[in-house]
């Protein structure tokens, strides 16, 4: 076993990915099943000159991370269901104030305290609609330890590039699972850093967008004295009551993601070329789907997988294309129907959609997917 090939837990891979991406600050509040992310960050960060702080609650955890990001460092906070609810307030703040930050949610059974040590996928819609008001959302969903490493880096890159909060939607299985991972050399990892102003302090307009709709971001303490607020503000950063300013700002925030979808969206397909049955699955459930597909293919049943990696924005176009090809889409989820709402909205004109839902705190098994497929065939 070379030094780079290791058995690693998903939560650990998240921290390793964050550090590879340049994370130098973590603030959070312990909650199962995300706690290892805090523990490993606490152990690792001071060794590389970074900072870790355990705050008094989940709200403070994200607030401190946003504050730290304003000084120019890359920051992360991690949580699970109940804490994700509490973080919604300041996810909205980071969105309107355009502050890069990565928020990890290792999903467990809910609502409320629910099933603390069991996996679920019940926060997928909260990721999209959790904080109030229209706001841009980028949410990624890993289904393996290696992908957790990769997507944590991607989360930081997208947060820095588009100056916004990015959500990494893990689940308890992926977070606690250990598997083989080969850590790439740092020279093989693409790192994106926020763009900073080069103009004089007098000329700096902190919220004037560049061509890609993203404003340049100065670090607090570097001579560009400017104002940051959660109120609707104009290019100067100061609050405005103008209806035009409000309209322009909210539309631009949304457009940062909308216009750049092609750069942000990613998905995985397996066995879709000739598929007439498509499984739509993400996170740990996609692994059950892959096993089910192997078993069904051995019997000559043409099943394929569509796995959104970016769950928000949703990979609409490709899924619509595939829906025109297949007879049925099966959507197994560890909730009572969340992402399937998108599938139904986009694809019900073209094909039949069948839900498969499980909320007992147990992963969906390949056999359950196979049974569902046999039932609808």
């Amino acid at each position, binding site marked *: 076993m070379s030094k780079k090939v290791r058995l690693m837990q998903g939560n650990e891979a998240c921290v390793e990915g964050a550090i590879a991406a340049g994370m130098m*600050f973590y603030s959070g509040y312990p909650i199962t099943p995300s706690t290892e992310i805090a523990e490993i960050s606490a152990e690792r960060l*001071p*060794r590389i000159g970074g900072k870790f*702080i355990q705050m008094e*609650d989940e*709200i403070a955890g994200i607030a401190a991370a946003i*504050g730290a990001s304003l000084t120019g*460092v890359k920051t992360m906070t991690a949580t699970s269901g109940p804490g994700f609810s509490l973080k919604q307030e*300041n996810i909205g703040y980071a969105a309107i104030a355009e502050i890069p930050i990565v928020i990890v949610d290792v999903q467990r059974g809910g609502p409320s305290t629910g099933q603390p040590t069991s996996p679920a996928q019940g926060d997928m819609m909260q990721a999209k609609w959790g904080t109030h008001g229209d706001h841009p959302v980028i949410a990624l969903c890993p289904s393996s330890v290696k992908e957790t490493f990769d997507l944590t880096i991607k989360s930081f890159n997208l947060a820095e590039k588009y100056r916004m909060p990015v959500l990494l939607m893990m689940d308890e299985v992926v977070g606690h699972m250990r598997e083989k991972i080969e850590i790439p050399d740092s020279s093989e990892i693409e790192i994106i850093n926020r763009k900073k102003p080069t103009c004089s302090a007098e000329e700096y307009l902190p919220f004037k967008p560049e061509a890609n709709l993203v404003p340049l971001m100065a670090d607090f303490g570097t001579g560009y004295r400017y*104002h940051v607020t959660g109120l609707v503000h104009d290019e100067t950063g100061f609050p405005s009551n103008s209806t035009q300013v409000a309209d322009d700002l909210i539309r631009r925030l949304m457009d940062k993601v909308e216009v750049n979808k092609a750069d942000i969206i990613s998905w995985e397909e397996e066995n879709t070329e000739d598929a007439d049955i498509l499984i739509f699955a993400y996170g740990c459930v996609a692994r059950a789907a892959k096993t089910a597909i192997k078993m069904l293919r051995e019997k000559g049943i043409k099943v394929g997988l569509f796995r959104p990696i970016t769950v928000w924005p949703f990979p609409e176009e490709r899924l619509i294309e595939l829906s025109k090809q297949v007879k049925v889409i099966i959507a197994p989820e560890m909730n009572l129907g969340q992402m399937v709402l998108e599938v139904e909205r986009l694809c019900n004109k073209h094909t039949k959609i069948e839900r498969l839902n499980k909320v007992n705190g147990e992963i969906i098994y390949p056999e359950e997917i196979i049974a569902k497929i046999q039932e609808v065939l």
Partner: protein
Amino acid sequence: MPSQLVEQYFRADNLPQIWCPGCGHGIITRAIAAAIEQLDLDPNKVCVVSGIGCSSRAPGYLDFNTLHTTHGRALAFATGIKLANPDLKVIVIMGDGDSTAIGGNHFIHACRRNIDITTIIFNNNIYGMTGGQYSPTTPKFDKGTTAPYGNIDKAFDVCDLAGAAGATYVGRATSYHANMVTTLVKNGIMNEGFSLIEAISGCPTYYGRKNKKGGPVDMMKWQKDFAVNVTAAARMTPEQLEGKFLIGEFKNKPEPEYTKEYQRIIDSLKGSDV
């Protein structure tokens, strides 16, 4: 051309400020700027953070790195700023509801950590921005729009709370005693640790009107007549102190500071990452 202090430390283009006529907040904000001037701090290294409410508008008028956050959370944001970059002088401005109701948890824990942040609570005993609801510092039996028959909650003593929670510098002044605000804020900034200055502010529009305290001048006169300096109070009888409140420096007891303690850990681990 406004006064030199305003010219140098305020964003004069944003003035006049939005506070009501006679609101003490403008006086206290000026007193904070005067403290920064007297300490000759580099404005590029000063960060002023606020939450939500009337007080939270102050940073928008001050020409530093300024952050207007969510209700009650100013200290949590400020903790992140200070820990990430301890070179910054971090000043937090909060209101009474902001700091002791919705932000009460953040407040006591910032005190406990003794992180080097100077916090000024603009205490006007009411929620002003939302229209005069009672706050955790509204005196018992006083009225607010949500306490039409009198407030039956017991009020917090913000300074006692901060001191008990671990703040290492604590003081109180009023908008009438603006120079004392400046002195206490200066001392607070110089204290390497968490400092809390309660600045009593008059809200003529809501608290004053609801409780028949008169106009701005009457409220300032009340501050003048009922405030007793803590050093003078030591020589007064309980009868003489009846109905009065204390101002001045209540606690000045330095202890190891949070970001310095964290840096010690970093230094002790140097070269240990594999």
